[in-house]
């Protein structure tokens, strides 16, 4: 029997994603202009968390619930029931947090953030116990464990910021906590999860065999060093070179990651792994190039990347361009797999049933992801050069193409 638990997370994540796009379309992306001037305002917080918590983290949690038992060779979750409880707690806390941000109600923000954080702790406990009981440690499971650990730390940093917001204990230390919150979440949680799961998904869809896995531990080592160097640099208000070393380690991690994905591709035995995997491969190369360029640029102009506008551009490139689009690309594989297993898994060998490729049109996946990428590029030009009209056009095109993509994914559930 297929667990329905990942479906809850994936569907909620897709709904949040669609709401984010509808919100953007409703004001012709005007909020993006405000966001590019100063990201730290109530609507900015709400939108950023709708994207990062409601969409990306919700989907990532669903993927963890689906893939961890698979990677552990059909070892069951520590507690499926706890998974459903976690879904309820996290979703309730997240929804209240959104309303709290919109209304700028400090009490609501604090209360619901605590509930959402409790949801994260339950998630970490459930996955931690599952991994510990299975005791099957490889680069995928270790990456997953590190990612979940960093998710908890992202929550801790966020909670401390929330408390400081309410009681003003820490003064300007708030900004240092924000830096730690971003490093833990962006690289520590999403970075480790995506790279770790890629070590499973790439060989599976390329049918790769015999490739070396040595570089996986180098990727982990560099990303880990990057996250902690970045976090410590912010917390200690360290000089620019310290931040730069964190960025350098991260760039080294992504560069080795891309090289390693190339090794996996070289040992493939299947010509076409599907549009979702090809896109995630392309996106990995893109983010590696961007991070390396950032290392070079920030060495010459150390203050440039810490300006609010540049932070917004980098944040969008990373969280939309790499994390968001990679999740979208992987969903074109994960959703057909989940639905196929649920609908047809118990009929294999009995009757003629469709293959997974029959559930989603790869050509449409390709076209829509291309549309998303082009729209994002236009949006980033608008962000970078402070062009409100270009920003509105790019943002709206991005929202439309993303919404159509959600429709394509949702259509799988009708097949």
């Amino acid at each position, binding site marked *: 029997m297929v667990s329905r638990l990942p479906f809850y997370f994936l569907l909620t994540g897709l709904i949040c994603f669609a709401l984010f796009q509808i919100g953007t379309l409703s004001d012709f992306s005007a909020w993006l202009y405000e966001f590019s001037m100063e990201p730290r305002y109530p609507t900015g917080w709400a939108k950023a968390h709708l994207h990062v918590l409601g969409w990306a983290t919700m989907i990532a949690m669903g993927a963890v619930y689906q*893939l961890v038992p*698979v*990677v*552990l*060779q*059909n070892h069951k979750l520590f507690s499926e029931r706890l998974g459903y409880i976690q879904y309820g707690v996290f979703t309730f806390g997240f929804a209240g947090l959104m309303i709290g941000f919109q209304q700028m109600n400090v009490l609501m923000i604090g209360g619901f953030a605590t509930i959402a954080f409790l949801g994260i702790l339950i998630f970490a406990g459930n996955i931690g116990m599952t991994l510990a009981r299975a005791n099957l440690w490889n680069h995928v499971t270790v990456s997953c464990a590190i990612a979940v650990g960093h998710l908890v730390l992202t929550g801790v940093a966020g909670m401390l910021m929330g408390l400081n917001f309410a009681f003003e204990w820490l003064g300007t230390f708030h900004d240092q906590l924000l830096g730690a919150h971003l490093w833990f979440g962006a690289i520590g949680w999403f970075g480790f999860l995506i790279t770790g799961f890629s070590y*499973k998904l790439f*060989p*599976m*869809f390329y*049918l790769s*065999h*015999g490739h070396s896995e040595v570089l996986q531990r180098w990727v982990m080592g560099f990303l880990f060093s990057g996250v902690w160097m970045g976090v410590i640099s912010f917390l200690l208000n360290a000089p620019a070179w310290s931040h730069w070393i964190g960025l350098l380690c991260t760039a080294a991690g992504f560069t080795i990651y891309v090289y390693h994905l190339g090794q996996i591709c070289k040992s*493939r*035995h*299947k*010509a*076409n792994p599907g549009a979702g995997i090809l896109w995630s491969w392309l996106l990995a190369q893109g983010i590696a190039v961007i991070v390396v360029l950032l290392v070079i640029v920030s060495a010459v102009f150390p203050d440039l990347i810490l300006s609010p506008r540049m932070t917004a551009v980098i944040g969008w490139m990373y969280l939309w361009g790499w994390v968001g689009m990679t999740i979208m690309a992987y969903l074109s594989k994960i959703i057909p*797999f989940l639905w*196929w*297993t649920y609908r*047809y*898994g*118990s*009929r*294999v*060998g*009995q009757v003629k*049933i*469709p*293959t*997974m*490729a029959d559930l989603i049109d790869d050509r449409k996946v390709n076209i829509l992801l291309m549309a998303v990428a082009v729209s994002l590029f236009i949006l980033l030009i608008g962000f970078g050069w402070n062009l409100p009209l270009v920003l509105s056009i790019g943002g709206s095109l991005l929202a439309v193409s993303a919404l159509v993509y959600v429709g394509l994914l949702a259509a799988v559930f009708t097949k």
Partner: protein
Amino acid sequence: MEKHITEETIIELLKEVYDPELGINIVDLGLIYEVKINGGHVYVRMTLTTPGCPMHTAIVGGVHRALEGEPGIQSVDVHLVWEPRWTPDRMTPEGREALGYF
């Protein structure tokens, strides 16, 4: 008169079980290591392309469903093994052609 099942018949029946991602049957993929018949009892030793294959339950269940209920088969025992590990060399020429890479 009770029908006697043969290894060839079992292999043909197993060709109805497809890997849903690759679109290739498990025989041409080279996943079947051994088939033994003892009266009406069928024993299948097989593997999957990778340990921790998400299709584990569906494919093993598919082997049961493809064989159980066939005339001459009383019981089916499927033994999933990871040693020796599957390699692409185990695929039949039909399987290789279907993957489009060889």
